[in-house]
């Protein structure tokens, strides 16, 4: 565990060593603000909550999260540092977890920096801060799911651009798998069980459930097992790709 934290610290510092971190934070804050106030009609709704803020998170994450995760492994492979990294006295699980946690901590920082919105809504009315907290938890969990997918895809290729595109595509499928766009394609010719299964993979369904303030164990298990599964795949891919 100590090694994991050492790796996490290095990776996190790595984000801030380049302009990537600052560009990301500024864009994330600007877009989430713009979406909340213009598309989400924050004022017009006249409700003291952050629903209009959280609603757009899946779509923001869709193209911002791959930008965070794309460098995790592909950069190591491109510069050859992966050989140095994997011959340090650490286990594969420490390496995979350390990198993932760094990316996750970075998104947590981005989320924390949206605190002015929380202050605003508390000045304007009396929101249920429990629901808002649940929204943040849900958003962070969903970001974790996106990141685990991204980390795994980053291990597949030396090219960060390819990692970005594949991650965005897979995350898109996961996001909309509960929506009519995907489900209509299946209805009519597939059994209801399968359709329910596909729908249950949706980020949106689980995220919306949590952000309404209901932290259901099933949603936690969903995101937890999704993260675990993709990190496991990540370790397998890293191991497989070492020779190349």
């Amino acid at each position, binding site marked *: 565990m100590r*090694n994991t934290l*050492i*790796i996490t610290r*290095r990776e996190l*510092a*790595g984000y801030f*060593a*380049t302009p990537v971190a600052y560009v990301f934070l500024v864009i994330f804050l600007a877009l989430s603000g713009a979406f909340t106030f213009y598309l989400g009609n924050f004022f017009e709704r006249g409700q003291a909550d952050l629903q209009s803020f959280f609603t757009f998170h899946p779509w923001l994450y869709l193209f911002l999260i791959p930008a965070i995760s794309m460098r995790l492994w592909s950069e190591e492979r491109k*510069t*050859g*540092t992966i*050989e*140095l990294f*994997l*011959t*340090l*006295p*650490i*286990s594969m699980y420490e390496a995979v977890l350390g990198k993932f946690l760094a990316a996750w901590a970075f998104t947590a920082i981005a989320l924390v920096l949206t605190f002015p919105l929380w202050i605003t809504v508390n000045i304007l009315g009396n929101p249920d801060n429990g629901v808002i907290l649940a929204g943040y938890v849900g958003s962070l969990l969903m970001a974790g799911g996106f990141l685990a997918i991204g980390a795994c895809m980053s291990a597949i290729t030396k090219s960060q651009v390819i990692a970005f595109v594949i991650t965005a595509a897979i995350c898109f499928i996961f996001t909309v798998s509960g929506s009519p766009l995907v489900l209509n394609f299946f209805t009519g010719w597939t059994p209801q069980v399968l359709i329910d299964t596909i729908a249950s993979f949706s980020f949106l369904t689980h995220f919306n459930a949590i952000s309404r303030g209901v932290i259901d164990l099933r949603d936690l298990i969903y995101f937890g097992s999704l993260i675990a599964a993709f990190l496991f795949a990540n370790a397998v891919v890293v191991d497989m790709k*070492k*020779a190349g």
Partner: protein
Amino acid sequence: MSEMIAIRNLTKDFGQIRAVDNVSFSVSRGEVLGFLGPNGAGKSTTMKMITGYLTPTSGTAVVCGHDVLENPVAVKRCIGYLPEGAPAYPDMTPAAFLDFIAAVRGLRGAEKAKRIGLAVERVQLKDVLHQSIETLSKGFKRRVGLAQAMLHDPEVLILDEPTDGLDPNQKHEVRTLIRDMARDKAIIISTHILEEVDAVCTRAVIIAKGRIVADGTPAELEARSRWHNAVSIVLSAPKVASCRAALQRISGIGSIEEIQGKDNLTCLVAFPVNGQPIITQISEIARNAEFGIEEVRVERGRLDEVFRNITTARA
């Protein structure tokens, strides 16, 4: 335990290609093993398997008593490894990079500061400690890699082309460094610079097409050369014919070759039969003033020739 590295029947296939084929050797404390071979012979692949980066197709390596297949982390802990090309995180400064490596290696507090200080001093990194690694010259990058490898004072050092890209002064420094550390460590260095073998190695293993083709001390390898114990005689061109005639009367000499030199000088090289010393017989001729001999030199043998012979014979 004197045998620090034992490599047993190491084999690695990449698809249809066998990169390393049944390689076995061992390295003891105090030895510096030069791992030689043409590019693509399997040197780096072998080193990657010893350090636990690549998994062998068959066979294994035992380092400091730990099997790399069974306990890779223990093996990695006792090895200092400089991978090919000395990779390091380009965004980091050497100071931050070494701090990270030291932390992962389990060093902390005063001990960590002391070890980093020592490594920085030994490879002379002080001037660039706080400048990002991507802005450093090739020589400095290599030194960052070396500092990283020796940071935890490992019992085993595996250095893949440690002097590649260094200028002659830096090469000399690195070789001195390796010799200094050799006493209480087992060291493997890969190189294709043959003078390096003479300069630092106590033993050389030559590998070609994934197989070991020679294993011995540098002197033993040199003795395999046609040039071993050959005698070169430098004299002025008009005297060559008569000197050559005199040489031909010596029974130990197998063949004589002429090499044209500068300033009207010619070098006659007498090759012995079966590498037997012939200098005593030749020195009589050399003493004869009528040949006007300027220089007589006994050749030790040429590693590059041996290297070429045994690595191309199999091809």
